[in-house]
């Protein structure tokens, strides 16, 4: 067998910026509602029911978490869906944000 010099193939150690994780489906974000002294408890419950189509007991559970603990993680979602929910909650003037679930 002829001793042919083969090109050396090195592992690709450089980050491929084009192929980022599929954030469209990655449930890597949490939607959080934060406590404030201005939004009414009944109103917050109503908004959770409307935005997430939750039954009243679940909506009340999260409203009480916001009230007693200062915040509640409402859902874990993809970037796109988390943005959608934050927008819906902020439309009702709730203090809501999305954060990377780390």
């Amino acid at each position, binding site marked *: 067998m002829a001793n042919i010099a083969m090109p050396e193939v090195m592992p690709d150690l450089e980050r491929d910026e084009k192929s980022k994780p599929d954030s469209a489906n990655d449930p890597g974000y949490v939607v959080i509602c934060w406590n*404030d*002294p*201005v*939004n*009414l408890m*009944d*109103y917050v419950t*109503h908004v959770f029911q*409307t935005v997430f189509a939750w039954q009243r007991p679940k909506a009340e559970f999260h409203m009480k978490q916001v009230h007693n603990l200062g915040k509640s993680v409402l859902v874990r979602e993809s970037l796109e869906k988390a*943005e959608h929910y*934050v*927008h819906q909650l*902020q*439309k*009702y*003037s709730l*203090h809501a*944000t*999305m*954060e*990377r679930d780390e």
Partner: protein
Amino acid sequence: MKLLRVENDRYCFQFGHREKALFEFLLRLYPVIPSAHQTLSKAAARMDENQKLLDEALAEQRKENKQHVEKLLTDPRRFKEKGAGAEMNLSAGEIEWMLQVLNDVRVGNWILLGSPEEQPHFDPKAENAPYVIAMGLASNFQMDLLDALKHNA
């Protein structure tokens, strides 16, 4: 503001004359929350582009709600004079944007008061009295609307 009846997804509310005037006064205040007040994330710096999109979406929403308000206030058929007051019909969908509008007025006036942790005391002679009154009135109407929705659930 009192729920009289619900028929075919239309909620009929009764207002006294002064109550109606206060209700219209509150709606005319909308929007009160400053634009770009809301942030998408506590780590907002990492999401500049998304923040811009959120600001645009909320601005569009405010514009739509403002149009709803103006239409409601200028439509002579919306309030029907009856006896010592007036009656107003709203669909469940209209109640949703009405709740958003009233809460904007409530939260916006709270922001104007400096976002106090404690419920501000009402002193009619104090400089902040208009803001405190607007907050209280908005919450009263909000509770009436929420009770109406609960009543029909």
